[in-house]
């Protein structure tokens, strides 16, 4: 009973998959389309970072090293079959909670927030939750009838609230929001009744004033700044104004690689991390930005295709959740850089400098590839 998703037949395999390359990919449990998308984005990342980091080769090599580590994580996750992943999910979640509690107790403080944990290597435990939380929800839902019952939903809420509360307390609003979204995607894909969705939507709207009250001053400022960036051109509004100037002045074709004045002359803050999309927009123009978006859509589309073809509930939900969440990262960052939503510290996935989030993302792609490549072995 192989129901083709979207009318695309999964059989027979394409020629590539049957050739030498195809056999190598299959042996390594890798997915060609995803690799093409990821590789393209990483290439753009290296070009943009070289420009944004003052054309320092050493910084670039550091990033290449991080990419290799992240690829190692991808390769590793791709080898683990979905059934093993499913069984390991609650353990990963539990480990994540423990580490988050440790952060609260002992963690290092970076940029005014307590996010880092030093266990030989320095990392943010919240990153584990980006994968651990959706995996655990998928594990919870996989053998229960869907759409989930109210009782199950209550358990979902508890599983969600504990880590999100810990992360929001660090405070790391951006990550907390993204983890809530990843969980929301899981239960949405699991068929959460539209009634509940409407109710949650209404509740969220009603809770906004309360949220305003519990927000930190800098977070409120970001929201206010979004509404009127010119009100504080040298303070909080500066980031948005400068990044809009960078993108807007790039025009259709861009100022050319290494020629972006906003970036090269340091008008653009955080240009190698959260605001790297502005560097791309300035130097490569509309065409460059669209090319990057296209590569992202390729990755997300392939992820959703894998989800559609996944043989079991756990794999389906997880693949769908990982793909949609990845898209959220892209949207939140680009929308923030273009002044459509408040500044939340979310890097542009796979492009911004930094290792931790890339390792998580690549591990996620490893899971997607595992789901895709272990299908024959698991199914039926």
């Amino acid at each position: 009973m192989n129901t083709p998703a979207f009318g695309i037949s999964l059989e027979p395999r394409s020629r590539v998959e049957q050739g030498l390359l195809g056999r190598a990919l299959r042996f390594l449990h890798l997915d060609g389309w995803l690799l093409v998308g990821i590789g393209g984005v990483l290439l753009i990342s290296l070009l943009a970072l070289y420009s944004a980091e003052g054309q320092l080769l050493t910084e670039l090599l550091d990033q290449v090293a991080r990419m290799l580590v992240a690829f190692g994580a991808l390769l590793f996750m791709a080898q683990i079959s979905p059934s093993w992943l499913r069984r390991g999910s609650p353990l990963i979640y539990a480990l994540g909670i423990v580490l988050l509690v440790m952060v609260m107790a002992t963690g290092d403080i970076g940029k005014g927030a307590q996010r880092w944990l030093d266990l030989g290597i320095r990392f943010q435990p919240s990153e584990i939750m980006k994968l651990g939380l959706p995996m655990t929800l998928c594990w919870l839902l996989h053998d229960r009838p869907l759409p989930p019952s109210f009782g199950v939903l209550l358990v979902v809420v508890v599983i969600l609230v504990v880590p999100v509360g810990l992360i929001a307390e660090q405070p790391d609003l951006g990550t907390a929001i993204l983890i809530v979204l990843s969980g929301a995607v899981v239960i949405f894909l699991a068929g959460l009744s539209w009634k509940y969705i409407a109710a949650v939507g209404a509740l969220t709207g009603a809770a906004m004033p309360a949220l305003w009250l519990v927000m930190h001053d800098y977070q409120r400022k970001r929201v206010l700044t979004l509404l009127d960036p010119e009100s504080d051109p040298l303070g909080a509004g500066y980031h948005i104004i400068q990044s809009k100037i960078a993108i807007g002045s790039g025009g259709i074709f861009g100022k050319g690689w290494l020629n972006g004045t906003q970036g090269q002359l340091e008008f653009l803050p955080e240009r190698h991390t959260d605001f790297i999309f502005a560097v791309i927009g300035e130097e490569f123009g509309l065409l460059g930005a669209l090319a990057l978006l296209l590569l992202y859509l390729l990755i997300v589309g392939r992820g959703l295709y894998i989800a559609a073809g996944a043989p079991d509930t756990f794999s389906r939900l997880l693949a769908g959740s990982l793909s949609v969440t990845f898209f959220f990262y892209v949207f939140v960052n680009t929308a923030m850089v273009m002044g459509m939503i408040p500044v939340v510290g979310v890097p542009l996935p796979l492009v911004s400098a930094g290792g931790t989030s890339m390792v998580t993302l690549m591990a996620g792609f490893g899971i997607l590839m595992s789901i895709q490549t272990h299908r024959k072995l698991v199914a039926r």
Partner: protein
Amino acid sequence: MARTLRIKDHWREQQLFTGRLLVAILFVLGLTGLVVVRLVQLQVGKYEYYSVQSSGNRIRVEPVPPIRGLILDRNGKVLAENTPSYQLEMTPEQVPDMADTLTRLVASGILPEDDLPELKETVASRRAFDTVVVAERLTDEELAAFAVRRPQFPGLEIRARLGRSYPYGTAAAHLLGYVGGISAEDKKTLDPIEYAGTTHVGKISVERSFEARLHGTSGHEDVVVNVHGRKMQVLNRIQSLPGQDVILTIDMDAQLAANQGLEGKRGAAVAIDPRNGEVLAFVSTPAYDPNAISAGLSRRAYLALQEDLDQPMFNRALRGQYPPGSTIKPMVALAALHYGVATSERRVGCRGAFSLPGSSHRFRDWKPEGHGSVDLYNAIEQSCDVYFYTVARELGIDRMGSFLESFGLGSVTGIDIGGEKTGLVPSVAWKKKAFRRPGEQVWFPGETVIAGIGQGYMLVTPLQLAHATATIAAKGQRFQPTLFRGTRNAATGTIEYEAPRPLPPVPDQEPAQWDAIIEGMHGVLQGPRGTARAVGLNAPYQMAGKSGTAQVFTIGQKEKYNAKDVAERRRDHALFIAFAPLEAPRIAVAVVIENGESGSKVAAPIARAVMDAYLKNPS
């Protein structure tokens, strides 16, 4: 019912999931669409707007200040020039600890402690990346002191800048004035674009009056700056045009001769070419050092100059007002001839004193035994007071006053530098206005009498006196005194001369009458009984002159009472006017020496020295 629902229906769940996946895809595409729309809006719709914003961010227009014009004397000697000097500059944003750095600068002797508050103010008012001048014109010792400590002072740098310097120092100080940092007051009158890069502006005298010619035209540079304002690249440079060189009418030989004569004295000397009003020498002593002032005086040093009892900042030639004493006599004599009160033949008996009819008050002659019977020639030659008491009384104050005014007394001469005083020619009407109490408003006949010998209320400036002397030399022809001979274009060397500016001449005067008083003045220096014949001896040219000695009534208001100095400061002022050569005068001089006692002995030799220095050169 809940039980039945617990059975998992895989086919239905997959259908449900596929539906949800489709919703997710629509969601993804929708949000992507929003991002694309926003990109197009920014990069296509508002591209022009953001391009301009981006250029405005990175391109800064920096002024290139022009080089100030030179000031030259009439023979091309350089009186003011621009010389490189070293100054210490600070970029506040590069200084890690401002308070500590300033403290250490003071401790190492580079920064005077007095300047600290002003410097702090300047630092606070500028942008962090703008350089601030910490100390100007560093001496070799200060340079060395900074050089060895350089590593301890990040953000500070030694820079060579063009500074104004005056090779003749004090000798031309009151003539040239000086330049100084642009003050808030200056900014009100200066063109903000032209002066955007200029640090110094002419503050007084020639440097101020000819500011527009000297300054030049500012250029500019379009530079690419980074977010900290640091220059990264020059895109375009429009050179500045140097200011014009200003050629003064001054003859430096005459100027130096006057300085030498006045050295150690409080006084002034002004020499004018009677043929065109050109000022040949313009000296006031004591003077300040314009090099020190242009370099920037410490507050303390400036106050010391201001409070000096000898008033070195006071331009006596332009603003000093003195009773003219007997130097007024040739003009009074001319007035007497003009109004028919005297003829060249009329004689007056002098027995050493004069009394008004019905009064016992005796107005003394300077020679107690009297001059005997004197005519106009004798009266001028020997400076007979009784003769002038007599004619003054017959002229009356108002006729005498209005005649003196036609020589330019009592009003500014209109010389090219500002701040000139008017002096005072008294009249009946003036006295009524000037005094408050009715008893004091009445003009007394005795006041007319002493006015005849230049005493009483009458006041002249050395410049006015020189101008009046030049007018006598030119027999009534008057020219506005000027320091401005012309300009020289620094780039092409083209010189443009300024035409003389004639003033209304002294009216209706017969040449014979001029000759009569000039003959008397000739006698002063070269006649057998002239008051200054010692000075006129052995001169290679013929000259005319008149000495004056003016009584000092009160100590000047601005001066402080100082017992030690009072005796000296109560002495009479010494004055002398002269012109030469007699036949075709080329120079007229007025010398005033405060408390100099004797016009003919103290002031006259200086006038002679100035004329010698000028006339030794032909033309």
